[in-house]
């Protein structure tokens, strides 16, 4: 099932590209600020989080200027959360198509991932500027950011397959999603450093691959440290397991998805 499924997906690779371009071009058509929106969301979050968590709550930021500290984690977080909330409604949103034409259904959630990835790349330019401004000394360890982010893309894709397929059967998923993402944001070291997490719950806390990946992403870029290999290995293992399970359950549900739209 997995092999034939992936073969079909490769046959339809052009559709994934076209759907992603559709997502990007339609989103910004008739909008005044256009591409700038990809930067605006993390920028606005950075400013408000800096105001709240640095000025009011006075959270520690491991000696790094708070705006830079929070933005470095916000970029992968916004990628994850926008991709997931888009993918959740993806298949139902294209219900009309799903009922009339066959194509591998995973293309719909995956196109939201690809579009969020594109936004991430644009927003990264802003991060680069901010790093220049604060004169962050990059080390070779910064290159670890690429595989770390790669694992995050895979994990995000796996989660998007699960939630988009679940949404077809139970429309409650999209209702719950904003709440779930809000809770998950605070269970991830975005606005606070990993060190602030009490050691008695840290074991459970680190079972969340998003938390590990985002913390590692920030660590290699801003501190110039090498990532914690053991933690990354666990996160990768969880990611692979989730991906296989997500793909198999998605493909099982896919056959009759059109009946539930």
């Amino acid at each position, binding site marked *: 099932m997995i092999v034939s499924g992936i073969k079909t997906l490769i*046959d*339809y690779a*052009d*559709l994934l*590209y*076209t*759907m992603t371009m*559709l997502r990007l*071009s*339609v989103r910004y*058509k*008739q909008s005044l600020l256009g591409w700038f929106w990809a930067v605006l969301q993390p920028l606005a979050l950075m400013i408000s989080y800096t105001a709240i968590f640095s000025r009011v709550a006075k959270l520690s930021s491991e000696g790094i200027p708070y705006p830079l500290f929070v933005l470095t984690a916000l970029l992968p977080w916004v990628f994850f959360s926008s991709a997931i909330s888009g993918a959740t409604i993806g298949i139902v949103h294209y219900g*009309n*198509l*799903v*009922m*009339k*034409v*066959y*194509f591998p259904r995973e293309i719909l959630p995956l196109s939201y991932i690809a579009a969020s990835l594109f936004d991430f790349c644009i927003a990264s330019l802003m991060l680069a500027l901010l790093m220049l401004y604060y004169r962050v000394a990059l080390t070779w360890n910064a290159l670890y950011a690429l595989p770390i982010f790669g694992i995050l893309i895979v994990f995000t894709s796996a989660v998007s397959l699960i939630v988009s397929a679940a949404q077809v059967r139970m429309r409650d998923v999209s209702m719950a999603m904003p709440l779930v993402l809000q809770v998950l944001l605070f269970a991830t070291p975005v606005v606070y450093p990993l060190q602030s997490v009490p050691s008695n719950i840290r074991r459970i806390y680190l079972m969340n691959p998003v938390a590990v990946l985002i913390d590692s992403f920030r660590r290699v870029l801003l501190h110039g440290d090498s990532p914690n290999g053991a933690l990354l290995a666990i996160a990768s293992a969880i990611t692979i397991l989730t991906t296989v399970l997500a793909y198999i359950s998605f493909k099982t549900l896919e*056959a*009759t*998805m*059109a*009946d539930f739209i």
Partner: protein
Amino acid sequence: MFDLKFQNVSKRYFFTGGSGPWHLPWHSLRSRQKSEIWALRNVSFEVEEGEAVGIVGHNGAGKSTILKLLSSITAPTLGEVSIRGRLSALVEVGSGFHPELTGRENIYLNGSILGMRRSEIASKVESIIEFAGVQDHIDIAMKKYSSGMYLRLGFSIAAHLDPDILLLDEVLAVGDAAFQGKCLNRISELRAAGRTIVLITHDLAALVRLCDRAMLLDSGKLIMTGPPRKIIDEYLAMGFAGVESLTTTDPASEKLAECRGVSFIPGHSGESIQTGYPMTARLTYFASRRLANVGFKISLYWPSGYLCSELATSAASGINLSPGLGMVEFYCPVLPFQPGWYRVDVALESNEYVIDKRQCCATLRVDPGKVVLGDFYFEHTWQVIEK
């Protein structure tokens, strides 16, 4: 060698309807198994490579479900569906167009949805635009298109697919007569090139022209397969089954009267109805009470949907009906219609409202009789007068 194969296929759908504002979560868990419908029951058939097969049946007979199963849009509840080769399905022309994108962008979008690669689309894009006849509008957003342009572009993209197997569901009724001709030609081309075709249509003339074989479906069961003409006759003999009754009288009140059937009888020695010969049309009705001043009407339509002509009782002199079964006969001394298939609507009216109306409830088949050059048979006699 078969291209498509159904083995004892059944398909069940569930209904989750009837949930008001006071619908509580546990209700949906309990009621889930309650309402179900079997769209197909134990259907088996094979379609050989290079064969063109038509499927006929009334609405709700399961025709579209077969196409959805063939195109993997959904999976069977029981049984097995096997497919060999690259398959393209045209279930609804133009599904997947995005109104904000231009025609050209939509060609890429729709083409990739139908399974074409971008390079393949790029090589065909000019030809697609030309076939659809939308050269002047190709670079403006499709929300500005007329519905005709929308459908023509949709069909044009589909016509440029190069599948081994082509599934068509009611896509022939697109655009004007000239465009329909183009569509039929394109399908004939694919057929001549040895492609396998499965066609669902109410255009019975196209069915006879395009298909080697037809299948008759009724209420999810495969009734019979055979030569198209034979299947169509069988289908027409099924009469009103499944044709919805339309009425403008109060639906809550009991039905005043209804049309029960319509048949066409050749009025000469021949076995079939032929151009230039007499014909009798017989409409049977049932009245539940005494009715004054009613009128009967049989409307005949071209396959394109345009009204061809009508048989009607005179509006000025209404008929008074007694309760019970009855029959109205229309006698045509000379049938002027060209050979072909005509869609039939029947109606029973009284003063200003419709008591009963059945659309597409039957088909009139006219066989070649006297030779027609032009649009219709012109009854005439002639003599030579020498001075």
